[in-house]
């Protein structure tokens, strides 16, 4: 037998750890406008390159360029800007409220606002999102009252979910926002099932599935791709690659594949990669994928390249595992600043109006917060009743639960 070199285990590492200096100069993002936009019924085989590039619309000068720019009106973009600003202000207030002990937990979107805010505008009434905890922009851009969101975060008397769920695990059927699960990934295959149900029913509604980069390693991701591929389900399969899964960099989930988007290729699913910090690019890609689903052409996989600027949640301090300066160095910029710059370049916005809008948004959020807090916060004021704890386990309460509620003395 030949002499053999011993094997060794290869464990991927991020490029930088605390103590290093981040340097993205070797990362070569394709310039805005440089990626072709194929027809939505293109053969998946012919557009595999879309999984290895990055679709971008806003260039450094703030101009919208190339085939993915679409034709949004100024009003649409101004509204989009306001959605993102609202989400950011909302996050800031709720983070603070958590620190003040008004609730147990919070998760913010900092840096990722464009994705859910822009995606939402491409959907139609009746479509259903199966979100993770980092797509509250779907609610905000859909007009869901932020006061109700806050009541959920506070688990107070006004909480539509009766205090049962951890903060940010919203649910709103009528707003096309499926109940968030704390178990990562589970909603991905459910979205496919929902879309299949729409197709079985000869309906026109489509579904959108959401997952983080880290969670693509979960079982449900695979089941979703298998089922979506086999039954050509009318679903958009979104992957939000924000570079981190708590303390774990995306290379651990991505392994040897160049991109998460390429996971779709083994299933014959058209797969696109898009600049997630570019409101216009997200909007363009979302429309393309949603149109494919709507025309019964089947699923589309979309990877949003973005950066989680904040901690994973309020339980997390990212400086223990990554560079504080990494987010500043992140080359795709800030989604709000980029859309703002575009609107200023287009002459429909200005620094002054932005400042003013910031103040307005802040006032709106604070006003909502005041209303919400009037209904209680986690440890004080109005709260859901203990009786609520026993409801909705089943449609009709079975004898053993009636007995237990009685034992509980409530």
């Amino acid at each position, binding site marked *: 037998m030949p002499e053999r070199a011993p094997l060794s285990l290869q464990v991927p590492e991020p490029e930088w750890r605390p103590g290093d200096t981040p340097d993205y100069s070797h990362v070569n993002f394709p310039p805005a406008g440089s990626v072709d936009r194929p027809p939505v019924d293109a053969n998946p085989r012919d557009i595999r390159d879309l999984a290895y590039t990055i679709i971008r619309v806003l260039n450094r000068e703030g101009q919208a360029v190339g085939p993915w720019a679409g034709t949004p009106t100024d009003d649409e973009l101004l509204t989009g800007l306001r959605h993102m600003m609202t989400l950011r202000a909302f996050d800031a207030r709720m983070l603070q409220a958590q620190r003040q002990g008004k609730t147990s937990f919070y998760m913010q979107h900092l840096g990722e606002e464009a994705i859910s805010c822009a995606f939402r505008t491409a959907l139609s009434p009746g479509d259903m999102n199966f979100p993770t905890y980092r797509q509250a922009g779907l609610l905000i851009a859909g007009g869901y009252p932020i006061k109700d969101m806050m009541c959920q975060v506070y688990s107070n008397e006004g909480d539509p979910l009766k205090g049962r769920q951890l903060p940010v695990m919203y649910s709103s059927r009528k707003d096309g926002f499926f109940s968030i699960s704390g178990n990562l990934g589970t909603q991905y295959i*459910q979205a496919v099932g929902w879309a299949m149900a729409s197709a079985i029913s000869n309906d026109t509604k489509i579904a959108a599935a959401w997952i983080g980069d880290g969670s693509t390693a979960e079982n*449900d991701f695979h089941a979703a791709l298998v089922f979506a591929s086999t039954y050509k389900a009318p679903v958009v399969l979104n992957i939000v690659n924000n570079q981190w899964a708590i303390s774990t960099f995306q290379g651990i989930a991505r392994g040897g594949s160049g991109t998460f988007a390429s996971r779709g290729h083994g299933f014959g699913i058209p797969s696109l990669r898009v600049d997630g910090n570019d409101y216009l690019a997200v909007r363009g890609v979302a429309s393309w994928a949603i149109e494919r689903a709507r025309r019964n052409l089947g699923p589309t996989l979309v990877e949003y390249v973005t950066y989680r600027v904040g901690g994973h949640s309020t339980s997390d301090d990212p400086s223990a595992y990554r560079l504080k300066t990494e987010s500043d160095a992140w080359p795709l910029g800030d989604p709000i600043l980029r859309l703002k710059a575009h609107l200023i370049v287009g002459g429909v916005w200005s620094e002054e109006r932005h400042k003013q809008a910031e103040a307005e948004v802040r006032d709106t959020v604070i006003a909502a917060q005041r209303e919400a807090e009037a209904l209680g916060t986690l440890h004080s004021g109005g709260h859901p009743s203990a009786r609520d704890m026993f409801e909705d386990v089943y449609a009709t309460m079975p004898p053993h639960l009636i007995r237990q509620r009685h034992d509980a003395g409530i």
Partner: protein
Amino acid sequence: MPHMTMVQAIQNAQDIAMERDEKVVVFGEDVGYFGGVFRCTAGLQRKYGKTRCFDTPISELGIVGAAVGMAAYGLRPCVEIQFADYMYPAYDQIVSEAARLRYRSAGQFTCPLVIRMPTGGGIFGGQTHSQSPEALFTHVAGLKTVVPSNPADAKGLLIAAIEDPDPVIFLEPKRLYNGPFDGHHERPITPWKNHQLGEVAEGFYALPLGQAAIRREGAALTVLAYGTMVYVALSAAEETGIDAEVIDLRTLVPLDLDTVAASVRKTGRCVVVHEATRTSGFGAELAALVQRHCFYSLEAPVRRVTGWDTPYPHAQEWDYFPGPERVARAFREVLEAE
């Protein structure tokens, strides 16, 4: 009334449910064109088309996860897991999702879903075709768990399960598919057509979930059983001449505690029988409830006759299976206890 096997009764229940409500869809591994490895969905694809009854990839997670999404949309999926032993890949979707959806969304989203699966041993199926995982469902708030023991019940309970607004785990004792089985494997097989409970009414009927049936009235002791073990218990009663009252629970959650407690209060003695491994089996819950609710009537400790705490072996099938002799011994023991 026509006779049916349990397979036919289950097929018939799904046929009727699909006929009555176009929201009912049926799918799983090999259930479409072929009609299921046990033939429980035979003919449904031909009758209702490929979009209401179809084959799926071999992904139990996919089957249940997609069904949860469909149920949330408003359909009523009735899916098959080929053997209960293969439900584990779907367990997360069952426990974390199906069972909790109504609760966590405060009723906005619901999950009217039936998961059918053949359970139990007695067919030389070895450890991956013989398991009885009912206790893994009864521990989960939000699920209902049903175990029919005969064609007539299977049909009525399955229709009720499909119509139920919540997720129902429907466990089909596969050893009963073609006839009752009392554990006397050395004897010829009795077909359902020679059994009264093989008579199945035509057309629609539903049996309410949560009601036990007394299969044999008796004064000496109470047997709590379900599925195949009902026949084993009946046989033990007959062979020992002990006047056992045999209760077929039919639904484990919600449990018909009234019927159970009334019987044990009358007899003062109780034997619990199931095929699943003993430790933390559903028999533990039954014993815990009985001692709690009938403490002052009990004249002997509740005895459990169960599968052993080992994986289900192949060659030693009849050493593992809690057959009539073991049940009879337990009868004698609870009677001898002073």
